[in-house]
C-alpha cells in the first residue's frame, strides 16, 4: 500500500485502478465476514428462485472493498470519515469489478492536515455497481506521529 499526505495531494489526482475478480469465494467470504447470512449471498439456487441470476455481493462487502481501496492509496495514517455510496448493477460471480477514484475536493484543517473528498466508482460488466464519495482525513507530511 502507498501513503499520501494532505500537502502532497491535489484535486484531480487519480487513484490507481483496482480490478477485483468477483469469484464466488470472494462473494461468500465477504458475506460471512460481515455476518450477512442472507441466502442470496451464498446459495445460487435460492438466489435464482428469488429472481436473481446468481448469488451477488452484499453491500457490506462493497463498503469494505471501497474502504480498502481508499486506504491502499491513502496509507495507514488516514482516517476515513464518511463513505456515501449509490448502488447499481449487482456484482455477480465471474464478473470483474474495477474500482477507480480521483480527488474531487480538498479542505485544510489544523496542523497542516485536512480533509479530502474522493469520487469512487466500481464498474462491472453490467455497468456501475457502485458510485460514491469517500471523505478522508489526511495528516501533513511533517505531521506528528507516535514513535
Amino acid at each position, binding site marked *: 500500500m502507498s501513503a499520501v499526505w494532505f500537502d502532497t495531494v491535489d484535486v484531480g489526482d487519480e487513484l490507481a485502478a483496482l480490478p477485483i475478480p468477483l469469484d464466488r469465494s470472494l462473494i461468500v467470504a465477504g458475506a460471512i465476514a460481515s455476518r450477512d447470512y442472507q441466502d442470496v449471498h451464498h446459495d445460487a439456487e435460492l438466489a435464482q428462485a428469488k429472481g436473481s441470476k446468481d448469488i*451477488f455481493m452484499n*453491500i457490506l462487502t462493497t463498503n469494505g472493498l471501497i474502504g*480498502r481501496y481508499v486506504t*491502499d492509496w491513502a496509507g*495507514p*495514517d488516514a482516517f476515513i470519515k464518511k463513505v456515501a*455510496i449509490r*448502488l447499481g448493477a449487482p456484482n455477480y460471480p465471474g464478473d470483474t469489478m474495477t474500482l477507480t477514484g480521483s480527488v474531487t475536493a480538498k479542505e485544510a484543517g489544523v496542523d497542516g492536515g485536512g480533509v479530502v473528498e474522493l469520487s469512487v466508482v466500481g464498474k462491472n460488466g453490467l455497468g456501475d455497481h457502485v458510485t460514491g464519495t469517500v471523505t478522508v482525513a489526511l495528516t501533513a507530511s511533517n505531521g506528528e506521529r*507516535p514513535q
Partner: protein
Amino acid sequence: MSEQQGMITATTTTTTAPYTADEQAEFLAALQAYVGQEIGIDQHGPDPVNTPMIRHWVEAMGDTNPIYTDEAAAAASAHRGIVAPPTMLQAWVMRPFGVDRDALGPNPYADLTSLVESHGFTSVVASNCEQTYDRYLRPGDQITLRTVIDDVSAEKTTALGAGHFITTRQDYFDQNDERVGSMLFRILKFRPAPKVTPVPARPRRPRPAKTEDIAFFFEGLMEGKLLIQQCAQCGTLRHPPGPMCRNCRSLEWTTLESAGNGTIHSFVVVHYPQVPSFDYPNQVVLVELDEGIRLVANTLDVPRDQLVIGARVRLVVERVDEELALPFFTLTEPTPATRQDDR
C-alpha cells in the same frame, strides 16, 4: 441487509392511477407520520469489537492496512493502536445466523413496511448507503444500534416500477452511550413494472414457389379444390406438376378436380428439428389418391395411434393464412388402434 441491489435510474414524481388524489394524499400522510419515529428496539452487538472478526474481514476484503492486525504498526500510526476497519460498522450488530427479520417483534418500521406493501409496493431494492464515522472502533468496544425512520418519499417512477424511497438512520453507540457512527440507508419499495413478454407472432408456413407450372395447384386450393394436372393429349394424371407428360411428352395439359379420397401409403412423424410455423409432433402423410397419384400433406385431427399405413383418409382444404390454403387429410373412419413405431 437482505435488500437486493439493482439499477435505479431516472426518478420523477407521478400520480398513481388506481387511487384518487384524496386517497393518494391520505396514503402519503400516513407514510409521513412514520418519519422521525424510532424503531424503539436497541440491537446489541453479540460480541465486543474483536480482532478475530477483524481478521476475517480484512482477509475477505484483501485489505493489507496494518492498523487492523499488526500491533506494532498500528501503534506507530496516527491511530495509536489496533482499530477495526470503519466500513465494518454494521457488521458488529448483524442479526445472528438463524434469526430472521421478524424476530425484532412489532415496531414502527415493520408497520410502515406492511402499509407500503398493502398498496402493492412489495418489491425492494437498496439504493443508497451513507456511513459516517465519529471515531474508529477499537477491540473491546461494545456496540449498540438504534434505528430511526428518517424519510419516506412521495411516489416516484423508477426504471424498476413506481415506488417509495424509505430512508432509515442507524445510529451506533458505544458502551458509554456515545455515538461512534451513523448510517443512512435508503431502499426503494416498488411495485414491479409488469414484465411485457411479447408473444412472438407465429411465423407463417413457408411460401411455395409458384411457378407457371404449379400456380394452378395453389390457386385451386384457395378455392377449396384439389386440382391434379392431367395430360390434355393422353389423359395421364401427374403430380407433382411439371411441364411435360411423362407418358406421351405432350406439353398440353389441363386439370382434374380430385374427389379427395385416398389411402395412407406411408407417413413420417417429425419431432426434430422443429420449425416454429408447424405443430409438433408433425405428422406428414403420403396419400395415394383414388385417382392414382400420390400427394404429401399434413394430417388433420388424426390421433397418433390411428396413423397407420392403409388407413382411409379424405381431403380437407384449409386456409392456413390469408394467402395460402393447403390440403390436409383426416380419417374417413376410425381404424383399429395399431400403434407403430414413430422413428
